[in-house]
């Protein structure tokens, strides 16, 4: 076998290997990327679009895949860039009609469990939307159970201590917004 044929064969084998690696990555991490996208965008079709686009980016640089040590963190960084491009600045929404939220938090969750849960998420959505962008990013990423503080730090390209500090500050703000609603329960 001449040199050109050997090179062609090894190229075919390498392509096959990286294609299999990519397929494995899709099977292992597609849901994670989807959750990450949904946590920020709060929209299912958009989250799926972001997931597709993220793996398209991976496909374009698929030859780098064998060199990646932590695939999930690498994918999260790519996904975060895709999300950041798509994410439009949210219109800040005030916690209007307080009475509605007070009833919601006091509701007996045995009945209409799903509806109540959805409404509570909407409430939290609104509260998170009022946070400054840097705090909001940390809060949103911290709600994804697969992500550790170190991984959040890597995605946002900030020190891990900053992640902890921002998360603490964000929780204080959220608690202060939640307090009047819970207080009204009495």
């Amino acid at each position: 076998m001449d040199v050109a044929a050997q090179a062609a064969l090894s190229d075919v084998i390498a392509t096959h290997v990286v294609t299999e690696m990519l397929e494995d990555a899709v099977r292992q991490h597609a849901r994670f990327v989807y959750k990450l996208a949904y946590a920020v965008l709060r929209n299912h079709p958009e989250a799926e679009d972001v997931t597709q686009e993220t793996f398209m980016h991976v496909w374009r640089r698929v030859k780098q895949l064998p060199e990646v040590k932590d695939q999930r963190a690498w994918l999260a960084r790519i996904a975060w860039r895709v999300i950041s491009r798509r994410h439009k600045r949210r219109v800040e929404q005030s916690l209007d009609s307080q009475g509605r939220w007070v009833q919601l938090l006091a509701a007996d969750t045995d009945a209409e469990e799903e509806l109540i849960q959805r409404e509570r998420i909407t409430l939290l959505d609104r509260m998170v939307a009022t946070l400054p962008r840097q705090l909001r990013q940390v809060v949103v990423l911290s709600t994804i159970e697969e992500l550790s503080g170190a991984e959040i730090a890597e995605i946002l390209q900030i020190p891990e201590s900053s992640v902890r500090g921002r998360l603490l500050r964000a929780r204080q703000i959220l608690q202060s917004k939640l307090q009047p609603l819970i207080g009204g329960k009495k």
Partner: protein
Amino acid sequence: MNREQEENVDRILDLLLANYSAVEPRPGLEGRILESLRSQPANRASGFWLASVAVVAVLAIAGWMFRSPSRTTTVSPAAMTEPRSEQSPTPSAVSQAPSRLFATSAIRDDRRSSAVLHQPRREQFPSATPLSEQEHLLATYVLQQHHGSATARDPMPRLEQPMAELEIRNLEISLIEGKP
């Protein structure tokens, strides 16, 4: 806010945050992604071929545009009627061409047209040529198959015989005998 209230707020916040990103995609997400990834190489290939065809088309048009002015500038009605010896390209003639860019192709066109003009005019086109050895053997074989060995020995006289005129006889239809 007392301690109990603080704990209560904390608990509710944890509860809300815990469910914030607890979502599942529509079933078959991985399949859909893999499907779109598999369609990518084909798209790239078709893009490549489209680009190739476009480049070839552009080159062909450019080539045609490059050549066509040379014909109009060099082949004049006078040149077509004049004898060949007077219209052979000379270095001075080429230098007098309107554009040096088309000089080479002009000479080539001139040579081609002169080669056609110097050939004698033939009665039949394409001109009748004697059969080659291979053609002769093939004809022999065909005649052996269809007309027997006697004619196959020398098929050429039979081939060169003029075709006899066809005679069309009157059509005769005999009556059908028998009872209806």
